């Protein structure tokens, strides 16, 4: 695989990260916001694997493994928050998260 193609992978990762970030900023449905965070995490995963390939090192892939675990934990806690919020106010958006204040 040529270096140019690997650079294209990095560029794709940047574009996907930006799409996820913009979505996180403009959407107010908490479920869609969680999905946008997933997009950003995946963009970073792609970048890590590409870096590992460019530097011929296995660590890039090992780090992606840990990012996967963090993503799973993040989704579990995020969905727990969304369920707790929706019990108090059905159809809630991100602004209503202040209802969860103890």
């Amino acid at each position, binding site marked *: 695989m040529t270096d140019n193609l690997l650079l294209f992978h990095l560029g794709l990762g940047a574009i996907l990260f930006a799409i996820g970030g913009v979505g996180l*900023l403009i959407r*107010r449905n908490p479920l869609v916001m969680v999905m946008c965070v997933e997009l950003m995490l995946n963009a970073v995963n792609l970048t890590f694997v590409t870096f590992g390939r460019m530097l011929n090192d296995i660590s890039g892939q*090992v780090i992606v493994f840990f990012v996967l675990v963090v993503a799973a934990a993040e989704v579990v806690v995020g969905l727990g928050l969304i369920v707790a919020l929706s019990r108090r106010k059905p159809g809630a958006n991100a602004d209503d998260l202040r209802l969860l204040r103890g």
Partner: protein
Amino acid sequence: MTVHSVVFAACAVIVIFGGLGVVLSRNPVHSALNLVATLFAIAVLFLNLDAQLLAAVQVIVYTGAIVVLILFVMMLLGVETEDDLETEPLVTQRIFAVLVGVALVGAVLAVLIIGGASAVTGMHSVTQALQSGTNNVKQLGRELFTTYVFPLEVTAGLLTVAVVGAVVLSRRPKDVQPIPEPESMTDQGDDPLTAPTEEGAH
């Protein structure tokens, strides 16, 4: 045009349009399905980059567990309402958000275009050089349990905290009241759980 280039081009189109679909779909279920497409394309890109184990894990964990979990919560909460994307809650918020995104992409692309292949600096093969083919799984497993064994153990702690946190968060709100004294086991007759059904039968 090598095979790698063709695979990359196809997957890049799916990734970008899938990502845009996640952000721009009015129905959250459509967002989730677009997310599945995006994650699948990224799994294929992992294969393109010779990361076979990660491609499999990506499909199993992301599309098999995480997206299903998100869809499950959606169905649990009910998503018959579509989001209103026309009204902007904060004026000019979207313009600034898109500006931030464009600036982000522009910065990274500028580095890549100006620097070329030398934009990525660092020492080569610090931990272990990549092995090709089926050795990827073996190599990744060996690294996880030798060099990275301490982060792996910390990960176990993180997962435990996440599970406990999810249980605490999704308790019913009324459960914060103190639990009443348990009554004696003999008077099963006025069990509060059966009272509403008796009322409904009358």
